[in-house]
C-alpha cells in the first residue's frame, strides 16, 4: 500500500501586517532552513522531530506500508499569504503528487488556520485541490493543530480528520502515526470512516487553551471516556480555535470520527460541543497587568519568574519585538532579567561594535507600531552567534532545528541580559539560551514571547509562570482585536449569545 505524505502547515495571524510571503518561506526559523521541502528533504528535516510529518515517517515502518514524502511546507507564524505564494507552493505539491501517483491514500499535515488572499479557509482550499488530484475513492487523512479554525469544508474535504490534542503541542507525532493507521485501515476496507463537526459560536481566549488546565483538561477527559465507551466511535478532537484570524470559520470545533454510522459521530460531537458551551465563561480568563507583573520577585525559589508576553505571542504570528514588558521592567528599575527581542537593526549595531564593545541601542517596537515603542538600553556586547540551535527534549510542535539569524547578547548597564535576534525565532527552547552561553535559571525574571509554546521548556525551570496581559495582535482578549469577518453572534464578543446543540 502506497501513501502520499504532504501538507502546508501554517498558522496565519490576519492582524499581522507582515505577510507570509516567499521570503518567509525562504527561511523558516522553526525548521532552521528553507520552509519549502520536496521529496526526501521532508524526511531529512522533519523525520526525527516531534512533528506530524515524523509520525507519517513512523508509519512507513508498519507492515505493508510505503509512505512517499511528496512535499511539505511550513514556516513560522505570520500574516496573510499573498495568493502567489500559496499558488506556487500548492501547485508544486499537487504536481508532484500527480507525478508520483497513483496512491492508495494521502496523509496531510495541515494547521487549520491558514489564510490566503482570496481564501479565508485556505486549508479547505488545499484539501479540495488534493481531492481533485486523487479522486473521491482514495482516502485522505488530515492532521491539524489543536487550535486550528476547523471548518466543515476542511473536515468533509477529507475522509479522516484528527487534531493534535495537546497545547502546548507535544502529541503531533503520535497523531501523525494515528491518522496513518486509520487511513491504512480504510484502504484495506477494515473501517468505513464517517465524520461529524459541530462549531459552537465560541472564541476561546488563548489563556484558556492549556490542555493541562481546566476547562480543556476536563473536556478532553470527557472526550476520551466517550471514545472508550461508545462502540464504533474512532476518535474525537476538540479544536480550540485561533482567535487571531479574522475569518468566518474562527472559533472552537468538535470533530468526531466513527466507523460506518454517521449518527454515532454526530452524537459524540454534539455531546462534547454542548459541554464546551456550558463552560464558555471559563474560556474567557484575564492575564496579569504589566505594571503588576514586572514587580514580581523570584524570592528564595528554585527558578526565575517567567513572564509570558501574551500580546507578542510569536507562535501566533507577532513580530517578537514588543517592548511593553521591557518598558515596565526599565521603569521599575529591575535588574537580573533576561529578555529576547527580534530586532535585526540592533543586531547590526552590535555586530558593528564587536564583542566587548559598549553600545547604546534602541530596542524593539519597530515592526508595526502595534507592540510598544523602542526602548533605549545601554550595555556591553557579550556574545555574537550565528543563531542556529538544535532543541532537545520536549518542544512545542516537535520542532528541532531553529535559526534566529545573527544573534547578539547584551549585558545591560542595569544588570540584565538582552538577547537580540535577526530573525523572528520563537522562544520555546532553553537551548536557544544555552547556545548563547546563557543559563536562564540564574535570572530573577525571564520573559518568553508566547503563551503555550514556551511552557514545555520554561515550565520546569520556572518558580512561577505568569500570563502578562500585554497589548498586541495576539492579545489575550479577542474583543480588543476588531474582527470584521467573524460569525455573529459569538461569545465572548456578544456576551448574551444563545446557542444549543439542539436549536442550531
Amino acid at each position, binding site marked *: 500500500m502506497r501513501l502520499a505524505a504532504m501538507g502546508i502547515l501554517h498558522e496565519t495571524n490576519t492582524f499581522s501586517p507582515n505577510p507570509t510571503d516567499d521570503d518567509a518561506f525562504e527561511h523558516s526559523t522553526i525548521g532552521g532552513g528553507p520552509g519549502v521541502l520536496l521529496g526526501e528533504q521532508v524526511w531529512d528535516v522533519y523525520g526525527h522531530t516531534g512533528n506530524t510529518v515524523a509520525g507519517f515517517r513512523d508509519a512507513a515502518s508498519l507492515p505493508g506500508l510505503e509512505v512517499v514524502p511528496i512535499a511539505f511546507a511550513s514556516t513560522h507564524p505570520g500574516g496573510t499569504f499573498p495568493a502567489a505564494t500559496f499558488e506556487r507552493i500548492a501547485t508544486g505539491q499537487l504536481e508532484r503528487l500527480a507525478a508520483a501517483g497513483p496512491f492508495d491514500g494521502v496523509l496531510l499535515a495541515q494547521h487549520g488556520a491558514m489564510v490566503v488572499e482570496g481564501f479565508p479557509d485556505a486549508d479547505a482550499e488545499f484539501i479540495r485541490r488534493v481531492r481533485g488530484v486523487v479522486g473521491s475513492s482514495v482516502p485522505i487523512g488530515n492532521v491539524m493543530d489543536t487550535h486550528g479554525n476547523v471548518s466543515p469544508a476542511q473536515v468533509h474535504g477529507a475522509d479522516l480528520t484528527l487534531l493534535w490534542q495537546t497545547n502546548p503541542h507535544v502529541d503531533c507525532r503520535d497523531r501523525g502515526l494515528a491518522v496513518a493507521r486509520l487511513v491504512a485501515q480504510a484502504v484495506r476496507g477494515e473501517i468505513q470512516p464517517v465524520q461529524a463537526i459541530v462549531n459552537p459560536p465560541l472564541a476561546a481566549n488563548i489563556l484558556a487553551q492549556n490542555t493541562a488546565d481546566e476547562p480543556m483538561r476536563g473536556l478532553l477527559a470527557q472526550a476520551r471516556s466517550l471514545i472508550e465507551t461508545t462502540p464504533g466511535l474512532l476518535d474525537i478532537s476538540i479544536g480550540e480555535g485561533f482567535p487571531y484570524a479574522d475569518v468566518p470559520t474562527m472559533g472552537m470545533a468538535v470533530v468526531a470520527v466513527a466507523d460506518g454510522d454517521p449518527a454515532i459521530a454526530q452524537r459524540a460531537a454534539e455531546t462534547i460541543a454542548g459541554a464546551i458551551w456550558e463552560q464558555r465563561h471559563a474560556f474567557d480568563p484575564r492575564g496579569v497587568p504589566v505594571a503588576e507583573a514586572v514587580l514580581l520577585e523570584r524570592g528564595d525559589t528554585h527558578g526565575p519568574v517567567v513572564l509570558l508576553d501574551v500580546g507578542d505571542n510569536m507562535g501566533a504570528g507577532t513580530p517578537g519585538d514588543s517592548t511593553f514588558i521591557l518598558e515596565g521592567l526599565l521603569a521599575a528599575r529591575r535588574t537580573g532579567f533576561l529578555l529576547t527581542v527580534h530586532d535585526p537593526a540592533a543586531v547590526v549595531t552590535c*555586530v558593528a561594535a*564587536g*564583542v*566587548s564593545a559598549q553600545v547604546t541601542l534602541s530596542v524593539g517596537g519597530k515592526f508595526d507600531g502595534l507592540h510598544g515603542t523602542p526602548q533605549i538600553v545601554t550595555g*556591553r*556586547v*557579550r*556574545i*555574537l*552567534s*550565528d543563531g*542556529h540551535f*538544535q532543541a*532537545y527534549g520536549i518542544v512545542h510542535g516537535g520542532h528541532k532545528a531553529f535559526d534566529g539569524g*545573527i544573534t547578539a547578547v547584551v549585558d545591560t548597564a542595569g544588570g540584565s541580559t538582552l538577547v537580540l535576534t535577526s530573525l523572528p525565532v520563537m522562544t520555546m527552547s532553553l*537551548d536557544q539560551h*544555552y*547556545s*548563547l*552561553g546563557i*543559563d536562564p535559571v540564574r535570572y530573577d525574571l525571564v520573559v518568553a514571547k508566547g503563551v503555550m509554546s514556551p511552557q514545555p521548556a520554561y515550565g520546569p525551570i520556572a518558580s512561577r509562570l505568569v500570563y502578562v496581559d500585554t497589548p498586541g495582535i495576539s492579545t489575550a482578549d479577542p474583543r480588543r482585536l476588531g474582527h470584521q469577518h467573524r460569525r455573529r453572534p459569538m461569545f465572548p464578543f456578544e456576551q448574551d449569545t444563545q446557542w444549543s446543540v439542539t436549536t442550531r
Partner: protein
Amino acid sequence: MTRSHPNVLVAGFSHELNSFIPGVSTAEVLAVAGPTVVGADLFGPSVGIDLELHAVAAVAAELGVTLLPSIYMWGGVGPVIEDSVYDRLRQRILHDAQLERERLDGVLLCLHGAMATQSVDDTEGDILAAVRAIVGPDVPIVATFDMHTHGTARMAASADALIGYRTCPHTDYFATGARAMRLLARAMAGEVRPTVSMRKLRMTASAEHHDTNHGPMVEVQALARELEGTPGILDVTVFATQPWMDVPELGWSVMVTTDGQAALGQATADRLGRAIWARREAFRVPKVPLHAAIERARASSGIPVVLSDSADTTTGGGNGDGNLLLAALLRDPRPDDSVALALTDAAAVDECMAAGIGAEVTLQVGGSLTPDFFSPITLTGRVITLADGHYDSELPVKPRDVGGIAVVAHGGIQVVLTREKASQLDASIYRRAGIWPERVRILQAKSAGGFRAAFDRFSADTMYLDTPGPCDSDLTRLPFERIDRPLWPFDADLDEPWAGAGPDPA
C-alpha cells in the same frame, strides 16, 4: 603566649610548576592567572570564594584570633617563576613578620607546595625557614598545602604542622584552611605541641589517579583517616606531588603531625608510605590510542564520551594548545560528528573576531605555545560564536577570563578557541561558548583527572588519550634531568620505597 586575642600573621602564595612548558612565569604572566592581594583583601572575593584564606578568616573570627594579613599571590600553573617575583613576595612577608614579631603568637601560611623559581626549587621550604628564623622556635607556624606538593625535608623541619588537601579534584579548600586555623589556635593556647614527622617515597605518579573518588587513592585516603584516629596524632597528610616538575626532591611524601610524639609520627608515616608503595602499579594510567578512542566514542550508545587529553592539562601546566585530537578528527570527519573541544590560540581568536560572525575562515590553530610537543594545523570552518572571555567556573567557583572566545564549526566539530588557556576541571568554558556539553558526542577535557568530579555527573564514558605533551601520564617519556634517582617508575625495578626500608613484604 596565651593571650585572649592572639595575633596571627597570614600570608602565602600558590603556583604549580610544570617544567616541560617553555618560558618563565613573569609578573605579567602571573597577573593573567590571578591576583596578588595585600592586607584585608586576602580574605575578600578577588582570589575566589570559600578558599583556605576565607576559612582562616571565618575560624579566626569565631575563636577571637586577630589576623595580621600580609600578602598573597595566586599564580595558577606554569613554568618557573621569575626570581624577582618571588624576591618581592618573600621580602614583603619577611618584612611584615619582622615588623609584627613582638606581638606575634602564630603564623599561618597558605601555600601550594610546587612553586619553584629560576633559582629556588623549594620556595615553600625557603619561606617557612626564613619566617622561622625571624619568629623563633616558640611561635607556632602552620601551613596549608595542595595535594600536589613535592614535600621536602625543609618544609617539615621549619613548620609545626603541614596540612594538605584530602580531595582530588580539590573541593576541600575551606575545610583545609579551617583545620589549619583550629590547630594553630590550639597550639597558641598551649593545648598541643604539634610536630611533623615525614616520610619521603621514591615514587611519583601521574595525576589521573590522584582522584580521591576512584581508584587507588580512595584506599590511601581511607587509611590516612584511619591512622588519624590514633591518640596523639593530629593530622595525616599525603602529598602526591605535582608530577611534571623537574626538581631534585620530586616524589610522594607523607606528613604526620603529632602532639609531640615524633616516634609515633614516624611509625605512622612509614606505615602509610609502605601502603602507598604497595599500590604503585595501580597508579599507572591506562591510555587509549587516539584512533581507537575516537572509534569507541563514535560507537558509544550513550553521550557524551569524555576524552581526556591529559598530557595537555591546562590546570597542570599545559598551555591548552595541544591539537592532536582535533587533527585526528579532521583527518577522518564524519557527517554525524558531534564534537566540542577547546584550544588555546590567541591569534586564531583575533582572526575570527576580524572575520566576523558567520564568516568562513581558514586558520592555523594550536601548537603555537608548546612547540616541543605540538605544531599548528589547518582548520577550515564557520565562525558560529564570538564572545568575551568572562565566565564563572564551577570547580572552584571562581570568576575567569580567557580574554576572548571564538567557536569555529567544521561540520559537527566545534572548536572553542580561547585567547588564554581555559581550565577544564569543569565544563563551564563550553557552556560559556554556547555549547551544552551534555548534547555532544565527543567532549574533550584537557585535565588529568580533576575533571571527573564535574564531568562524571553527565558523561556516559571516559577515556584517557594516549597523546604526548607536557603533562604526559607516561612520565618516563618526558625529559626529566634533575630528579633524585632511583625513583619509580623511572627505575621500574626499584624494590625499596626508601633507602633502607627493605623490599615489599611478600
